[in-house]
């Protein structure tokens, strides 16, 4: 049985100045926004905000300067991330590029791809989305069917991606496509591409979510030409590449803060002398959050030391989603005002939004059952 290691981490004192800077910046940019707006941190696409962050040097923080990065530590990046998420900053636009697409290109991209895309991601001017899921491909990701067929100087793409966050707002997609249908194992014959979403033959259509947001999309490709130089890594290596990319996604050391604004609003509504019931429930939530933060920091420390914390990060993501989903439940138990987006109090508005967003917390980035399968394998059960 593999032991999970959650070695405690102390953030170096230098990060405190950075934290202060981030807080001052957030106060200025989003401090005046109502809590219900700030609780939409994951779904709010705000390119202008992302550009301001880029100006500050807070996207692509750890990347080499040669590619527009800032060569700062994983721990400094951690501090910026947790401040953005706790404050409810609109992170949706730059998030994918910063966390996932950028690192993928750094690791597997060609020199030309890095020079062409990374500086724009880091400045908050180029936004990426992730094309993995398809109508018949969810958790069983290796079953993708959207094809990229060889042609002169490149490939022709046909098929449909779905649930693609922000595809209607983004410039590019990193897509997992089938380049070879004659394979014995479905994991073979997959490749990753950078697709230009403005190219002829691409249609991105938002699919309204239950909270009435246009966030994810259906993206249809009809004979879309992709030049050779937009293949990422090696043809046929897509599966290996995408699994290490997902490790980045899940290693995000901050997967527990989606409902944090609601904890603050509940505490505000409880006042300085809360009832016993509220004190107990809120104290418990704070304890859970504090422990998850320790675990997240530990994952950040492992990333900083160049270790592979993917199993630990999976544990944090699973526990984090449980907490994020429990917070609106606790709000229901403790407060009487009916949660609606038009309610009088911030608390009821935020509850109304998060109760609708919550089901996605244990789906996006890998469904709970899939994460637990990964953990079970780590325990030596398969």
């Amino acid at each position, binding site marked *: *049985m593999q032991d*999970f290691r*959650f*070695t*405690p*981490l*102390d953030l170096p*004192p230098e990060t*405190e100045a950075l*934290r202060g800077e981030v807080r001052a910046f957030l106060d200025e940019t989003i401090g005046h926004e109502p809590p219900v707006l700030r609780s939409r941190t994951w779904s709010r696409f705000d390119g202008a905000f992302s550009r301001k962050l880029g100006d500050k040097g807070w996207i692509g923080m750890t990347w080499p300067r040669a590619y527009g990065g800032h060569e700062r530590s994983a721990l400094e990046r951690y501090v910026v991330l*947790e401040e953005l998420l*706790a*404050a409810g900053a609109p992170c949706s636009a730059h998030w994918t590029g910063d966390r996932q697409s950028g690192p993928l290109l750094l690791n597997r991209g060609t020199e030309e791809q890095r020079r062409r895309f990374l500086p724009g991601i880091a400045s908050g001017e180029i936004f990426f989305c992730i094309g993995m899921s398809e109508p018949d491909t969810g958790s069983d990701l290796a079953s993708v069917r959207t094809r990229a067929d060889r042609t002169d100087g490149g490939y022709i793409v046909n098929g449909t991606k779905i649930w693609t966050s922000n595809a209607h707002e983004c410039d590019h997609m990193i897509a997992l496509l089938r380049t070879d249908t004659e394979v014995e194992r479905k994991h073979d014959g997959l490749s990753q591409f950078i697709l230009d979403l403005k190219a002829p033959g691409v249609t991105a259509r938002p699919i309204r979510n239950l909270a009435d947001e246009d966030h994810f999309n259906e993206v249809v490709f009809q004979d879309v030409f992709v030049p050779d130089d937009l293949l990422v890594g090696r043809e046929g290596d897509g599966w290996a590449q995408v699994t290490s990319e997902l490790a980045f996604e899940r290693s995000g050391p901050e997967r527990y803060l989606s409902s*944090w604004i609601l*904890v*603050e*609003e509940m*505490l*505000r509504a*409880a*006042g*300085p*002398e*809360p009832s*016993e019931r*509220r*004190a*107990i*429930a*809120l*104290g*418990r939530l*704070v*304890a*859970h*959050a*504090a*422990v*998850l*933060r*320790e*675990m997240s920091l*530990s994952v950040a420390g492992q990333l*900083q*030391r160049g270790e592979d914390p993917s199993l*630990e990060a999976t*544990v944090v993501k*699973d*526990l984090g989603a449980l907490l994020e989903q429990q917070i609106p439940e606790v709000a229901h138990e403790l407060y009487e005002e009916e949660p609606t987006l038009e309610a009088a109090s911030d608390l009821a508005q935020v509850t109304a939004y998060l109760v609708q967003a919550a089901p996605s917390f244990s789906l996006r980035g890998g469904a709970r*059952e899939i*994460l*637990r*399968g990964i*953990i*079970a394998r*780590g*325990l*030596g*059960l*398969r």
Partner: protein
Amino acid sequence: MSGAEMEDENELAGILADQVNRLLADTATREVKRAAELGDWPAALWAGVEEAGLPLALVSEDAGGVGAGWAEAEVVMRAAGRHQAPLPLVETMLAARMLEGAGLPIPDGPMTLAPIPPGDALTLDGERLSGRASRVPWGGRAGHVVLLLEGEGGTAIVLAEPGEPVANANVAREPRDDLTWTEAVVQAAPTNLSAGDLRHWGAFARAAQMAGALEFVLAESVRYANDRSQFGRPLGKFQAVQQQLAALAGEVAAAGASVLAAARALDRGRAGFEVACAKIRCGEAAGKAAAIAHQVHGAIGFTQEHALHFATKRLWSWRAEFGGEAQWSQELGREMARLGADRLWPFMTGARGA
């Protein structure tokens, strides 16, 4: 702490953990635990931990101890929980530390400390102790009892021989005796510790023991799921079982992380928040983990014969001792409410203990 220092410390902690775990694995056997449930004192087991210097881990080398900090003490306490050593080991560690701080002599042999919940009436008149302390861990077995008494003249640490015992126990059948003294001659000295500090130490020790017992529960459950077959394959191959065990692993991981954070905060000297979080988180993990472990073990885990209950019964007991989740959560919730919503996040991210 720099990265390199942290690595060194982790390595040391790893070596210590290996040693203590080996010692206890060999000596805290099923038979010893069962005999202790029935009232035997495990003299050989105690001799082993004493020889290894564990009871005086938190005492300085000058005073004959090991000079360990809380992070190393956590390793010992966690191992004690992992192996469910039926001894007042963590109690002796804490009692000895209290005595040293007050400049009192540290007697040999097992000691304990009185938790003194509200309702216990104890008076110290010069060097004479009277009154009743309830639910003292191993109270009737320990050679000495250490008490912290807050009075008008200040706070004192008292070293007493056990008073007249009325035997009592927790559900794990660990002795939790009521002790009564009548004008008993004791040694006393002023202390700058408070009753609050003592509660933190006790809660921390129980949380660390829970983290250890949780590791045991997870390891046993995984082993059992791989060994036991039904429908022609090991239980661990069934997805329903895998999902449960993954959830169990998450609880164990969170409990362990919470205790490491609390130990570090204690070493820095201000740990109220982290200890409260650890006691709350470990207590909740105890409930969830024990339930899953028993479900996975089926009927065999529900027997006296099987070793699982030594851990799960202790989890159910330790969860409540030195303040259960209701108490700690309420305190924490009130503290955060006084702090206010806008200062919550800065508090969470501040270097609280520094």
